[in-house]
């Protein structure tokens, strides 16, 4: 997975083109997949939540720096600072409903400005910051597309990052200004006349736009409304986590521009008044043990991470380290946001059990940005539950049949009160327990759609259900997720799930875990299987043969080609997920694995120089535009020259 990307923009979007018009009894068979209802607070909007937070001055959010030192901001102080920043944003000319893009790496600044914008009814658009210079070109392109899609009026960023972002002003029609966080933070409040008295926020108002990282060429912004947020926050904090604001404390290193970090640890805990300690994402990546060190030190009770982080934490835990940890404080360790590998989970539980970690605390969960965040959580009172199903029945008949050997899947629990999760067949019919189909979802957490994208919205919400694009089934009151519908490998009329092939290949010595992609590509007469894997091994022939043999033994398929690339050779999304479709596209274009080689230091420096030049130029023309209207013609001339 890529560092630049941890730093990601949400989950792969679940748009699907199937028309599902035929629904008999939508609730049939769902009762067993819903949790019991709990009491919620009175909050209707996140702005209500900020107002209520003003009364809580004895706890709040602690933002640690890279040295793991930091100060606690009480909820009351956060609320007051949000008001102060809200007035500043209004004084800049931002109105209710205007989009304010945010490229802000620092957690404290991000959270306070995010809440400030929300308080004023401005719609923030969180974006991930640039980190790896080698990818600056594509970063700027993606950023321009997101800003354009969101019709962002202003972009908030830091002094450090801004020099490379100025070129966006000339590339994005709606973008009027780049605002520096330093100015927002340090402005003199006495000079601000704007008030917040006339701001009225309705539950149906858009609160922010969450861009998904699935497709960079055609980004889609999920509209997250206040009522979506409150519904999902209540579901997470009360139904799913059964939180106690007096005793619970969250710990998170998750990027805040990503839904699990932002909704799970910034918005939901504020609504439920649960304190949180934030670790910089980069500090976790540099030193994975800091995650559990901070949990230990602050006696954290709730923390979440994607699958890969469990692997990193396990790998880096020395016996000496384990002896210093007492993880008995962890009540819930959630795992979500990417496919959950049972082997990785077991290794984690085995290792940290000696440090007091309770296996019951491990909680697999399932969600996506289009459902605000969470769709299902496993129960709090049991260890991870897995189900091993027969491969033949699964791939041939699309039925989940329990077996001694086969495909092992992790149960992701049940959905929340007022929400339904169901499995849908190809004709839009709802399927029985044990049948495999597309996971669909509905309830107050579901978005009303993508920002200014009616076509994608129609597909996403066809027939009144959110189409996740994920495949899965229900069994024994538990939801199991088995893969992405679009990634299905169909060979000779038989369905194979790429994940099951990938996890099999991962078992081979020399193959990098979590860095395998399987897909099908048109062959001479029918689709054929291609497996691409990252390896550090130099002797590739033997390894290729081993992969071929393993795939053949496990699935009876002869792959057409095995492609072995070096570490980092597989394309990944901004949040570090493998990109199957991009891998397939690069394979078919014959350019797979060449991306890194082209990015030598000279090319990188040239790219940086070009961006800085363009940025400086854009800043110059922007200033002309601002100070002298008549100069607009000159700007147009310049722009035309620039676009050539």
């Amino acid at each position, binding site marked *: *997975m*890529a*560092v*630049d990307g941890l730093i990601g923009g949400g989950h792969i979007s679940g748009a699907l083109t199937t028309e599902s018009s035929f629904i008999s009894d939508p609730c049939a068979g769902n009762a067993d997949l819903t949790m019991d209802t709990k009491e919620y607070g009175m909050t209707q909007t996140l702005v209500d939540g900020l107002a209520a937070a003003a009364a809580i001055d004895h706890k709040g959010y602690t933002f640690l720096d*890279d*040295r793991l030192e930091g100060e606690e901001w009480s909820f009351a102080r956060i609320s007051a600072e949000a008001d102060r920043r809200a007035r500043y944003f209004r004084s800049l000319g931002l109105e209710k409903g205007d989009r304010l893009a945010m490229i802000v*790496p620092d957690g404290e600044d991000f959270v306070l400005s995010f809440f400030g914008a929300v308080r004023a009814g401005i719609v923030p658009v969180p974006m991930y910051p*640039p*980190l*790896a*210079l*080698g990818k600056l070109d594509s970063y700027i392109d993606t950023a321009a597309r997101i800003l354009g899609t969101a019709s962002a009026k202003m972009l908030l960023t830091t002094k*450090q990052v801004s020099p490379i972002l100025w070129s966006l002003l000339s590339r994005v029609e709606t973008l009027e200004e780049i605002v520096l966080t330093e100015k927002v933070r340090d402005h003199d409040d006495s000079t601000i006349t704007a008030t917040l008295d006339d701001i009225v926020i309705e539950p149906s108002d858009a609160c922010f736009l969450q861009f998904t990282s699935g497709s960079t060429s055609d980004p889609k912004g999920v509209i997250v409304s206040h009522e979506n947020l409150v519904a999902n926050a209540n579901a997470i904090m009360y139904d799913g986590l059964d939180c106690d604001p007096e005793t619970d404390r969250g710990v998170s290193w998750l990027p805040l521009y990503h839904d699990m970090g932002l909704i799970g640890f910034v918005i939901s805990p504020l609504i439920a008044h649960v304190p949180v300690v934030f670790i910089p994402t*980069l500090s976790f*990546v*540099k*030193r*994975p043990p800091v995650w559990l060190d901070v949990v230990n030190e602050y006696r954290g009770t709730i923390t979440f991470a994607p699958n890969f982080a469990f692997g*990193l934490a396990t790998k*880096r835990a020395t016996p000496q380290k384990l002896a210093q940890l007492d993880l008995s404080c962890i009540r819930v360790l959630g795992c979500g946001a990417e496919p959950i590998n049972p082997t990785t989970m077991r290794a984690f539980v085995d290792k940290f059990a000696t440090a007091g970690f309770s296996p019951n605390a491990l909680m697999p969960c399932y969600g996506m940005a289009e459902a605000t965040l969470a769709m299902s959580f496993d129960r709090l009172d049991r260890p991870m539950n897995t189900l091993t199903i027969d491969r033949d029945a699964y791939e041939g008949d699309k039925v989940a049949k329990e077996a001694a050997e086969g495909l092992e899947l992790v149960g992701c629990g049940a959905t929340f009160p007022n929400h339904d999760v169901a499995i849908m067949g190809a004709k839009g019919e709802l399927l029985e327990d044990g049948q495999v189909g597309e996971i669909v979802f509905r309830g107050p957490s579901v978005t009303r759609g993508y920002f200014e994208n009616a076509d994608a919205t129609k597909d996403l919400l066809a027939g009144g259900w959110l189409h996740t694009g994920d495949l899965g089934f229900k069994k024994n009151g538990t939801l199991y997720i088995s893969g992405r519908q679009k990634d299905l490998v169909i060979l000779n009329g038989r369905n194979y799930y790429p994940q099951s092939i990938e996890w099999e290949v991962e078992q081979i010595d020399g193959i*990098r875990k979590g*860095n395998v992609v399987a897909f099908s590509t048109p062959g001479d007469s029918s689709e054929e299987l291609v497996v691409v894997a*990252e390896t*550090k091994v*130099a002797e590739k022939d033997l390894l290729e043969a081993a992969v071929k043999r393993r795939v053949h033994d496990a699935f009876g398929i002869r792959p057409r080609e095995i492609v072995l690339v*070096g*570490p*980092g050779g597989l394309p990944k999304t901004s949040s*570090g997920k493998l990109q199957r479709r991009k891998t397939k596209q690069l394979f078919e274009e014959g350019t797979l694995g060449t991306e*890194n080689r082209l*990015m*030598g*230091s000279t090319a*990188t420096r040239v790219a940086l120089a070009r961006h800085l030049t363009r940025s400086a130029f854009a800043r110059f023309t922007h200033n002309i535009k601002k100070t002298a209207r008549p100069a607009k013609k000159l700007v147009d001339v310049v722009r035309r020259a620039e676009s050539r």
Partner: protein
Amino acid sequence: MNDQQIIALFQEAVAEVDGNVKLGEMTAATELSSLGLDSVMTMEVIGVMEEKLNVRFPDEDLATLKNMGDLTKLIHRLS
């Protein structure tokens, strides 16, 4: 600490992060991207070095590191 010692320390850090990585001869011109480390591993190695040297590399400097020479220069500047 001279450049040779910094390179040796780097090799130790890589071994600590992943014992399977085989590093060949390294000089100031050796590109970090040619070592067979992905971006997460590179950051982990940087993290181990920070602890060994008891320094913190600023984020904006990390983004510009290309070869071992850049790294030794950064370390000299910080210490």
